[in-house]
């Protein structure tokens, strides 16, 4: 076990960091925001944390907090106008945001070190820091479903029109989703800076943006397990199966198209639904066998009605 741990430590750390990024992407998608800003925001967090450490000499936890504050601020600034726009325009605008940021990283040489990036950032991150970060984020996301904003996110993500007709403010909650996404992205970006010794523009461009989107789409945007499974499988698979590594892009492309057409909810959520339906059917059969009552009306927990009740009371 120890041998496995040592030889795979870089991969495990990379997976943990990417799970954080996937969470950031997951939050916005769950709230029905079609933002792809995560990687740009991670860049803001990573560069800010790196600069805080290198230029201002701030200790590692403070620099990390600085990165998180900056990326959350930038994300809210971005979310303010964008939460008014329709999905597809949010996608165009956030994609442009990522590219404008990458161009700034390349061209503001005095601040960002240009294409060489920021180097010589001390390596302060221990693997357990990354694990702790993932656990905390996962905990927040699981419990989000029990809070009013979380239920509003789910209602909007489920059906925006239905949510609006029940008095949920799409703008307000999507703005909040932007903030949370920025927070997670900043944390992951900052951890990356202190794990990797350096941050450079190629880490925050178009290709990683697509990767993060793939983790979440393949895993699923409903369950918190979705991004975790999606990230782990897609980062570990090339290491395990060499033929997969050689043809990675083609296979990922085909799988992606297949998943969006046939498994719209992603792998984890589709499996969960299958399992839940089967359990409901079993329960019904068992009960029908006992007293032959009427069939169950619905089998899934009523998340949206609960969210609706919140807002009816408010």
């Amino acid at each position, binding site marked *: 076990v120890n041998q496995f741990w040592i030889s795979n430590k870089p991969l495990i750390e990379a997976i943990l960091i990417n799970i954080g990024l996937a969470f950031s992407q997951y939050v916005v998608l769950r709230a029905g925001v079609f933002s792809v800003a995560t990687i740009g925001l991670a860049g803001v967090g990573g560069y800010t944390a790196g600069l805080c450490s290198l230029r201002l000499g701030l200790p590692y936890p403070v620099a990390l907090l600085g990165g998180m504050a900056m990326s959350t601020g930038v994300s809210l600034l971005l979310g303010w106008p964008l939460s008014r726009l329709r999905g597809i*325009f949010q996608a165009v605008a956030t994609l442009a945001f990522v590219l404008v940021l990458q161009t700034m990283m390349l061209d503001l040489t005095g601040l960002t070190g240009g294409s060489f990036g920021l180097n010589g950032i001390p390596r302060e991150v221990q693997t357990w820091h990354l694990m702790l970060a993932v656990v905390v984020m996962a905990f927040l996301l699981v419990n989000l479903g029990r809070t009013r904003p979380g239920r509003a996110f789910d209602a909007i993500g489920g059906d925006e029109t239905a949510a609006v007709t029940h008095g949920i403010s799409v703008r307000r909650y999507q703005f909040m989703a932007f903030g949370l996404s920025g927070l997670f992205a900043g944390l992951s970006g900052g951890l990356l800076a202190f794990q990797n010794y350096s941050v450079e523009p190629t880490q925050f461009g178009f290709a990683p943006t697509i990767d993060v989107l793939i983790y979440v789409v393949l895993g699923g945007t409903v369950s918190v397990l979705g991004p975790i499974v999606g990230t782990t499988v897609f980062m570990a698979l090339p290491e395990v199966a060499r033929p997969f590594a050689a043809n990675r892009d083609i296979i990922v492309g085909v799988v992606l198209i297949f998943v*969006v057409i046939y498994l719209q909810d992603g792998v984890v959520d589709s499996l969960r639904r299958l399992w839940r339906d089967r359990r409901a059917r079993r329960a019904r059969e068992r009960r029908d066998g006992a007293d032959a009552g009427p069939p169950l009306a619905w089998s899934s927990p009523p998340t949206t009605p609960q969210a609706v009740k919140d807002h009816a009371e408010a």
Partner: protein
Amino acid sequence: MTRFVQLLVDGIATGAAYSLFAVGFTLVFGVNRILNLAHGAVFMAGAMIAVLLVDRASIPFLPALLIGMVAAGAINVLLDIVAFRQLARRQAPEFAAVTASIGAILIITNISQRVSDTSVQRFPPEAFPGSVIDVGGVQLTLIRLVIVLVAAVLAGGLILYLRSTLYGKQLRATAVSEATSSLLGINPGAVRLQAFFISGALAGAGGVLIGVAFNNVNFAMGDLYLLYGLVAIVFGGMGSVGGALTAGIVIGIVQSFTVGYLSSQLSDAVPFVLLALILLVRPSGLFTVFTSERRVGRAAA
């Protein structure tokens, strides 16, 4: 002054190629409401096919351009049949189509990378006689003239097609409302086929012309031009053909002046800064065409 005119002419030449790319992009968005991010990859595929035909099979430039266009159009149609139509039939959200197009980028780029052995492909020098026409100190190379000419013919042809032919009118009717136009007897499948073919063919033409202009075709070029295309459609108004044509030329000229008067390093940044400014001032972009089509709950900006 000569320098100014020279930069202007150079800018118009590359801008003309951007325009072709942007028009195809905006056409599919306008007619089918699909943001096809694979447009950049299709553009690259057209260029790659043409450059390989010229370089390896010694086919003259113009036939290679035509084959590249038709092939790019065919790839786009295939993409529609395999992915976008399936999604439309299942009434999947917009997001699904964008994700599917990202899958297509990965596939097309990876295949091109293998075909080209990850190396930059160039048109052989003998494909173009390097003649230069000197008009009052302004250098007009034959290549630039060919680019502008081809772009003008294609753009003019497209506008004529959309305005005057029955098929073009069906296309425009579908852009206004697919439901209404199919009630009036227009076959939406046939319209889709045309829109995707024309879009892909224009992307392919743009790719070949850009490839010629910089004499550089590589498997990764699609990403950068996809972004220029995004800038152009935001700038010109999504779904607006005239807007995309104008925006493409404006971007070409702005870029040319940046290289000439400021620095070549900045030239990639300029379009994005322009886009950032538009998005700051008017976050709906200059999306003038579809302002009425907002979802409930969003204030009209």
